[in-house]
C-alpha cells in the first residue's frame, strides 16, 4: 500500500467512525505528523507534575539501591558500637542509631537494594505469567479460556499475603530474595491476567486482525505482532503501580518473619525490630517506614500519571 492509499484509508475510517485503534480518532489526517496514542501520552506525561515527583523519587530510590555508599555519609551499616544503642537522630547521624548501635541511615539506605530486586523480579514474573495466561485465555476462548479462568479464580480467592506466607513457610521455594519474589508473584499475577485477557478479547475482533488472518498469518504471529502490542497500555500502568505494591508486600512478609532473614538488610526487618521500641525510640520505625512509603509512592504516582496520559477518555 502506498502512503497515499494509507492516508485515504485512514481518512475513510475517520469519516465512517470505524477507526480500529484504541485511541479516540483525534488524528488530524491532513497534517503530516500523526498523533499516536504514545506521542499524545508522552506529551501529557511531561506536563504532569505528579509524574515528575514520581520520577524523581523513583530515581532517588534506584540510585540508593545501586550506589548506597553515596547516601550513607561514609558510615558502614555493619559497623556498630553498643555504646550508641538507640541514640536519637543528630547532626552527625541523621537517622540516629539502632539497638545494636549501628548507624541507622546507612542501614536504611542499604535496605533499598533488596526491595528493588524483589520488586522488579516479582513484577517480571507477574507480567510473564499474566501476559502468557491472559493472552492464551483471551485468544483461544472456549474450553482453554474456561480452564485458565477457573485457575485464575482459584488463586484470586486466596488472600494475597496469606498465600505468600504459606508458600514461603512450606520451603518449596527455599529462602532468600528470589524465593520472596516468586512467592509474591505466584499469588499476585491474576489481575494482570484478567487485564490482558479482556484487552485481547477487545482487540481480537478488530479489522486489522481479520486482515492479518486473511493474509495467512499464523495464530502466534497475530497474537504477538498484532494483538499484544495494542493491549499493552493498561498492562504497563498496572505493572508500574504493582512494583510499589510488591515492594510494600515484601516489607510486610519480612516484618511477619517469613520473608528475608537476618543478616539481610531490609526495611521489613528494621520495622520489626523497632516496633517493640516504638515508645522509647520511635525513629527506629519511623525512618524505614518513611523511605518505604516514599518508594511505594514513587511507583504509584508514575502509574497514576501514566494512566491519565494513556486513557483517551480523560483527554479534553
Amino acid at each position, binding site marked *: 500500500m502506498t502512503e497515499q492509499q494509507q492516508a485515504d484509508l485512514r481518512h475513510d475510517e475517520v469519516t465512517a467512525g470505524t477507526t480500529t485503534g484504541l485511541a479516540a480518532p483525534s488524528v488530524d489526517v491532513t497534517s503530516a505528523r500523526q498523533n499516536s496514542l504514545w506521542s499524545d501520552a508522552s506529551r501529557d506525561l511531561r506536563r504532569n507534575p505528579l509524574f515528575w515527583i514520581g520520577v524523581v523519587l523513583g530515581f532517588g530510590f534506584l540510585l540508593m539501591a545501586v550506589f548506597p555508599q553515596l547516601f550513607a555519609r561514609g558510615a558502614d551499616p555493619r559497623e556498630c558500637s553498643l555504646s550508641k544503642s538507640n541514640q536519637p537522630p543528630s547532626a552527625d547521624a541523621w537517622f540516629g542509631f539502632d539497638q545494636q548501635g549501628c548507624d541507622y541511615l546507612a542501614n536504611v539506605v542499604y535496605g533499598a537494594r533488596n526491595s528493588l530486586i524483589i520488586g522488579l523480579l516479582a513484577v517480571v514474573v507477574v507480567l510473564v505469567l499474566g501476559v502468557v495466561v491472559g493472552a492464551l485465555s483471551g485468544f483461544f476462548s472456549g474450553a482453554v479460556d474456561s480452564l485458565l479462568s477457573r485457575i485464575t479464580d*482459584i488463586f484470586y480467592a486466596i488472600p494475597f499475603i*496469606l498465600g505468600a506466607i504459606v508458600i514461603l513457610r512450606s520451603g518449596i521455594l527455599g529462602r532468600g530474595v528470589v524465593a520472596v519474589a516468586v512467592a509474591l508473584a505466584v499469588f499476585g499475577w491474576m489481575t494482570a491476567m484478567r487485564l490482558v485477557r479482556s484487552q485481547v478479547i477487545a482487540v481480537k475482533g478488530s479489522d486489522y486482525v481479520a486482515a492479518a488472518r486473511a493474509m495467512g498469518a499464523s495464530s502466534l504471529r497475530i497474537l504477538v505482532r498484532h494483538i499484544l502490542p495494542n493491549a499493552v497500555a493498561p498492562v504497563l500502568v498496572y505493572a508500574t503501580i504493582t512494583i510499589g505494591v510488591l515492594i510494600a508486600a515484601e516489607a510486610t512478609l519480612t*516484618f511477619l518473619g517469613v520473608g528475608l532473614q537476618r543478616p539481610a538488610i531490609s526495611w521489613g526487618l528494621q520495622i520489626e525490630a523497632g516496633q517493640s521500641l*516504638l515508645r522509647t525510640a520511635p525513629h527506629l520505625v519511623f525512618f524505614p517506614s518513611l523511605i518505604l512509603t516514599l518508594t511505594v509512592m514513587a511507583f*504509584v504516582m508514575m502509574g497514576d500519571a501514566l494512566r491519565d496520559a494513556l486513557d483517551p477518555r480523560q483527554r479534553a
Partner: protein
Amino acid sequence: MGRYIARRLLLTIPVLIGASFLIFALVYALPGDPIRALGGDRPLAPAVVAQLRDEFNLNDPLWLQYVKYMGDLLQGDFGTDFRGRPVLDTVERTLPVTIRLTIVAIAFEAVIGIVAGVLAGIRRNGFLDNVVLVSSTLVVSIPILVLGFVAQFVFGLQFGWFPIAGIQEGWYSYLLPGLVLAAGSLAYVARLTRTSVAENLRADFVRTAKAKGLPRRTVVVRHTLRNSLIPVVTFIGADIGTLMGGAIVTETVFNLPGLGRAVFDAIQGQEGAVVVGIVTLMVFFFVFFNLAVDVLYAVLDPRIRYD
C-alpha cells in the same frame, strides 16, 4: 436470573475445591514433623507417634488425605488440631473479632469514602477535588504496616485517644485498627465515587433534570447520586469478602485475636487442619460476597440483565 445464580453457584465449586487443595498441598509440604514437635524436648514414644499419625491420616498419600478431610468438612466436621482442640472452637473464638473489625472498616470506607468522593465529583478540578485526589494518592501509597504504626504512635501514644492493642475496650478498641484496615479501600471508594459522579453529571438525564428546573440539590441527590453509587456499592460489597480474609497485618500490629492472626499462628505451628479450615472459610466468604455483589448489581441497575 435464577439460572444465572445457579450457574454461578456451580462455578464456585471448582474454585472452593481448587483453593482448599492448593493450601492443603502447601501445608502438607511444610517442613518438619508436627507430631514430633508436639513432644517438645521429651520425644514421644514410637507407639504414640504411630497412633497419632494414624489418627490424623498422616500416613496416607496427599490426595487421599485431602479427600478424607473434605469428606469430614462436608459433614460439618472441621477436624481438630494436633492437641485435640476442635478447629471450629478456634473459628468461633476468632471470627467475631474479624467480623467486628470488618464492620468498622466498611463503615469508615462507606461514609468517608462516599462523602469525599461526592464532594470532589460535583466540583471537578475544584479545590476539594484536588485535596481528595492528592490525599487518596498519599493514602494508597502508605503500606498498611506503616499506617498501623503511625496511627499507633500518633493517636495511641502521643495523644492517648485510642488503645493501641487488644480488644479490652469493646467496639472502641476497633476504631483505630478499623480505620487503618479501611484506608486503602477508602481512598479507592473516594476515587470511584468521584469519577462516577463526574461522569453522571454530564449525562443526558441530568441535563434534562436541570433543564426542567429542578433545584440543584434534587438533581445531585436524586438523579446523579443514585446512579453513581451503583459501582461504589458493589465495590464495597466485594470488599467485605476481601477484608474478611485479609487482616493479618492489621491484626498483628494491633494485637487483635482475629481470623488472620489465628491462621498465621497455625501456619507457624504447622497446624495443617486449622490452616486449611480457616483458609477454606475465607475463600468461601470471598466467593460468596462476590456472587452476592453480582446479583445485587442486576437488582440495582435494571439495564444489566443476566440471561
